[in-house]
C-alpha cells in the first residue's frame, strides 16, 4: 500500500517570533468584539435591527423559525361543526411503526361519514415523529404542524395526548373539564381504557 507522507509546512521566521501571530489573533477577536459591542449597543437604541450581533436565539422567548415541512406535535383537524375530521379508518394506527396511536371508533350520526373516533390517543413518549400517520390519512384529519417542540412531562402518563389536546393544541395538561360536544370516551367523562391495555389486546 502506498504511503502518503504529509509534510507540514515549516514555520517562517515571522511565525516563529510568535508575537506578530498573537497580534493577528488579537486582531480577529478584537474585530468581533468591537463589531458585536457596536451592534449590541445599536440594538439597545433600536438601530440596525436587521443585523444580528449574536447568533443566539433566546429560546423560550425567541423561537427559531421552523421549516414549513417541519414535523412537530400532532393535531386533529376539525370540521366546521367542531367534530373531528377523522373517520376512524385506523390507517394511521396501522401504519404507525411505534404503535403509539390508539383509536376507538364509534358510529357517526351522519350515515355519509359512518365512523368517528370515540377515543384518539397518541403516546408522545413512544412516537418517533416519522409523519407516516399524516401521509397515510385519507381525510387530512391528522397533521403535524402545530410547531410545538417543548413536549416535556414528569411522567410517562403525562406524555399521552388524548382527543382534547389533539383537537386543541393550545390546551395544556392538566385538563379539568371536557369541552367536546360530541359523544366520546375521555378520561374526564369516565371512559378509561389505558393505551397499554389496548395495545396488548392488539
Amino acid at each position, binding site marked *: 500500500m502506498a504511503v502518503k507522507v504529509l509534510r507540514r509546512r515549516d514555520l517562517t521566521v515571522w511565525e516563529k517570533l510568535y508575537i506578530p501571530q498573537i497580534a493577528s*489573533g*488579537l486582531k480577529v*477577536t478584537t474585530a468581533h468584539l468591537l463589531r458585536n459591542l457596536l451592534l449590541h449597543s445599536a440594538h439597545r437604541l433600536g438601530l440596525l435591527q436587521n443585523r444580528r450581533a449574536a447568533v443566539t436565539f433566546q429560546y423560550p422567548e425567541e423561537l427559531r423559525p421552523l421549516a414549513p415541512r417541519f414535523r412537530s406535535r400532532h393535531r386533529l383537524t376539525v370540521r366546521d361543526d367542531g367534530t373531528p375530521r377523522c373517520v376512524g379508518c385506523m390507517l394511521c394506527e396501522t401504519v404507525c411503526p411505534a404503535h403509539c396511536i390508539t383509536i376507538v371508533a364509534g358510529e357517526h350520526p351522519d350515515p355519509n361519514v359512518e365512523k368517528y373516533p370515540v377515543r384518539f390517543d397518541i403516546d408522545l413518549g413512544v412516537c418517533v415523529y416519522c409523519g407516516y400517520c399524516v401521509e397515510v390519512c385519507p381525510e387530512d384529519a391528522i397533521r403535524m404542524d402545530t410547531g410545538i417542540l417543548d413536549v416535556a412531562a414528569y411522567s410517562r402518563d403525562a406524555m399521552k395526548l388524548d382527543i382534547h389536546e389533539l383537537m386543541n393544541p393550545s390546551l395544556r395538561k392538566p385538563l379539568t373539564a371536557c369541552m367536546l360536544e360530541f359523544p366520546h370516551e375521555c378520561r374526564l367523562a369516565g371512559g378509561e381504557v389505558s393505551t397499554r391495555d389496548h395495545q396488548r389486546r392488539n
Partner: protein
Amino acid sequence: MIDLAVKVVLALFVFFGVLNLAALHTWLERKQSAVIQDRVGANRASILGWRLMGLFHPLADSIKMFTKEDIVPAGADRILHTLAPVFSVFFALVTFAAIPFGDRFLLGGRVIELQVAKINVALLYIFAMLSLEVYGVILAGFASRNNYALLGGLRATAQMISYEIALGIAVVGVIMIYGTMDLQELVRGQGQNLAGWIPLWGIVVQPVAFVVFLTAALAETKRIPFDLPEGESEIIGYFVEYSGMKFGMFFLADFLETILVACLATTLFFGGWQVPYLTSSGFQFPWGATLPVSQPAYVLLGVVSFSIKVVIFCVLFMQLRWTLPRFRYDQLMRLGWLGLFPIAVVNVLVTASALAFLKR
C-alpha cells in the same frame, strides 16, 4: 489613632475594591468571551425582573459556591486541605497593600499616601508574596491525596517558580532606571516627560522588559495561554478535589492575581496613577497651555487614571485568554528558560550599560 483609622479605611477601600473587581471579572470573562464568539452570554439571573446584562451572575455564583457541599476526600489531610485555598487568597490579597493607587493628598494638615502600606522595598515584598502563593498550589495538590492533583500541583509549582525568575529580572531594568524599589517613588519618577512631550513611563524606556514582564506575569497567574496547571476539564489541575467555596477561593485567587498583575504592569510600565501632562499644580501641556487643577481633583484624577489603566489591562488579559491556545508543557518551559530568561538578562545588561554610558 487617626493614623490607624486612615490605614483601616485605605485597607478596606483596597480590599473591597479588589474583591469586587475580582467578582466582576467572572462577569467580564463570560460576557467578553460571548461577544467575541458572537454569543449573548450569561443574562438570566435577575432580581425583580432586572437582568442588567447578567451582572447578577457573580452574586448567584457566590451564593451557589457558599451553599454547595464541601467535600474533603477520604484520607486527605483535613487541615492542609482547608488551609491551601486560604493561603492562595490571603497572599493574593496582601500583595495589594504595596500598590499605590493615588498620589499623596493633604487632609486636615495630614499627608495621606494613597497606598495601604508604604514599604520602601515594595517590589521585593510583592515578589515575596507572589512566591508564597506557590504554597497554596502545592499544598492543594499534596493535601488532596490524589495523584493527579499532586502532579497538577507540581506542574503549577514548576511553572510559577520558572516564570518568577524572568518576572523578577524583567523588573530589574525598571528599578535601575528609576533608582527605587518604593512603588510610590517609582510612579512619581514616571511623572517627567521625555523630550518635553512623551510621558517618561516605564514602557517608553523599557519596552522589552514590558513584553517579558507581561508574558511572565500571565504565566505566573496561570491564565491562558499558560493555564496548564489548571486545565480545568482537560488535564486536571491541583484543585480537582476541591468543591464549594474552597474551589471558589482558588478561582478568586486566580482573578486576584490577574488584577494584581494588571496593577503591577500599570505601576511599573504605565505610570501608575500618573495622568499625562498632569502635575500637582495642574495640567501643563507640551504646547504651553496650562489648566490649573485643585488638589482633591488632582488626586481623584490619579485614582481614576490608575483604575482605568488596570481595567484596560484586565480586558487585554481577557482578550488574550480568548485568543490564544494553550502551550504544551515543554514549550512552556522552553519559553520560560530559553526565551524570556535570556532576554530579560540581556535587557538588564543593556540597560546597565546604557545607564553607565549616559551618566559618564
